């Protein structure tokens, strides 16, 4: 646009020709973003969607045409007990870790509010430290903490009198394997939840709480009838994000499997998809579409609650 246009526009900055040119340039600005999203995400997802209706395995990798089998891959997900077991296990794992995370996160947020300034700062710093740890680095530490022979956790448990933990291997039964995975996931995700809820709590005006106290409301009643409704929007978003994030616990499970066992008893959706891979891509694609579908349903609620509070 030349400076002449702009000077003409000073009389009325939104006259018709300028407006049309602006609209044109606005859409042009979006082209690179749309292009990279289509390339990196759009195309693979659409391709995967079509393949999920095909018999696509090893022969197709070498150029044989794939056969359309429509819903067979999806039927297999529901009917094959191993795969169905993994689906159910993933959903249960996601729900349980999210519930524990939000519970502990909420309690820590209340604790931050109740503690003195120095103690609060120390707690926040410690949470930040845990949050900032790169997942892979954090996983190596946790595996080391729970090491069978020289791990500090077994040592402490034995010293507290639980002799059954002498040389106890946490990764050799699915129950303790997923228990440990849940502890790690909770440790990693509580910081965000606690800090977000605490930020919400600081928005609750002290005057309201004081007034309620003068009127005789107990601590529990104040939490239940004043604090809780006021932080509910934050709580909703935090819960949704936890559900979305805890569906994708790939790195944690993968690295625990590296040390323990990699059989399907120890799989969640991510690791199972990785393991099956292109060997039977039709089935993998169907599972991936299932994961994406589940995420999109959850994301829909996230987006809706974002939209409710903010004009976009």
């Amino acid at each position: 646009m030349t400076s002449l246009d702009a000077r003409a526009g000073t009389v009325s900055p939104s006259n018709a020709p300028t407006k049309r040119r602006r609209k044109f340039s606005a859409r042009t600005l979006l082209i690179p973003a749309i292009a990279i999203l289509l390339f990196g995400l759009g195309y693979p997802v659409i391709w995967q969607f079509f393949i999920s209706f095909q018999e696509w395995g090893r022969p197709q990798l070498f150029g044989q045409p794939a056969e359309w089998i429509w819903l067979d891959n999806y039927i297999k997900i529901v009917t094959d007990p191993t795969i169905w077991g993994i689906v159910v296990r993933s959903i249960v794992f996601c729900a349980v870790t999210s519930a524990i995370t939000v519970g502990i996160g909420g309690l820590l947020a209340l604790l931050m509010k109740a503690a003195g300034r120095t103690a609060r700062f120390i707690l926040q710093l410690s949470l930040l430290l845990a949050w900032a740890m790169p997942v892979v680095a954090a996983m190596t530490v946790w595996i080391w903490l729970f090491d069978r022979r020289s791990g500090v956790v077994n040592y402490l448990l034995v010293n507290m009198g639980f002799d059954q933990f002498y040389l106890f291997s946490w990764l050799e039964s699915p129950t303790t394997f997923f228990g440990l995975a849940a502890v790690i996931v909770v440790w990693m995700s509580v910081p965000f939840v606690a800090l977000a809820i605490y930020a919400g709590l600081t928005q609750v005006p002290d005057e309201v709480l004081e007034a309620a106290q003068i009127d005789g409301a107990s601590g529990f009643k104040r939490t239940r009838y004043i604090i809780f409704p006021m932080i509910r929007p934050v709580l909703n978003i935090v819960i949704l994000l936890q559900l979305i994030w805890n569906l994708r616990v790939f790195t944690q499970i993968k690295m625990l499997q590296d040390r323990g066992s990699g059989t399907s008893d120890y799989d969640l959706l991510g690791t199972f998809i990785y393991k099956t891979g292109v060997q039977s891509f039709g089935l993998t694609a169907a599972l991936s579409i299932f994961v994406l579908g589940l995420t999109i349903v959850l994301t829909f609620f996230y987006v809706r609650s974002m939209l409710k509070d903010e004009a976009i």
Partner: protein
Amino acid sequence: MLGFKAKRAIFSMIAILVAAIWAFPVYWMINSSLLPNVKLESRIPTFWPDGGNLNNYQNVLQKGDFFQALGISAAVTLLAVAGCLIIAFMAALAISRFRFKGRTSFVLTVLIVQMLPAEGMFIAQSQMMSNLGLKNNILGLSLLYMAAVVPFTVWMLRGFVAGVPIELEEAAMVDGLSRAQAFFRITFPLLAPGLVASGVFAFLQCWNEFTVGLVMMTDNANHTLPLWLRAFVQSSATRAIDWGQVMAASTLVAIPVVIFFIIVQGRMTSGLVSGAVKG
């Protein structure tokens, strides 16, 4: 009934106890990284790195493949972040400065797409990249990272652009600047902090990414830092793990990230729940 001060003291003590528990794994990583393996393999743990040294770090750094992985990570991340910032900045400008048909659908797409899990797409992405000959390729991985971080960056930058009042630009145009001049001389300098913050976030995402890297970089020679660290643990899985070195390696990977993260985290918390806390 306890007094207010006594209650506060009790809560403060609990808070410090929780803080100690939460930070313990991080402490344990640093502690172990300073201790010789004789002490680490003993049945009785050493809780304080008394008489520790930097030998583990020396051994890790001497291997050479650490620096190779560092180089790959740096190249992939740099390409992805630079590309992402340019692309996202243009898009953020469009959606916060202009009203046009399709704008709302674009914003909605951005919101939804940033939640899609890599685990739902990575096999398809890897297959596509191998068809294009971009597997085990720095450019290939950085393109996928770009696609992954563009949505969140657009979302963040959009807030920053909207924070600079359009009136500033219009005033400059009244004073005789063209629209482009007004933008680059007035608005752009005000956006610099926002660009830096968004860049750091994109950096952290790409630098720590594991899943897509794992399917894309199958050659050891192309491992990024997280993949290198995982392979490091795995390679010693059959023998006894050299925990001292593994912890030193983890510390090396973690420290720069932790510092960066702590500097910018406030914006992330508020970005994710933005709009939810308006009271």
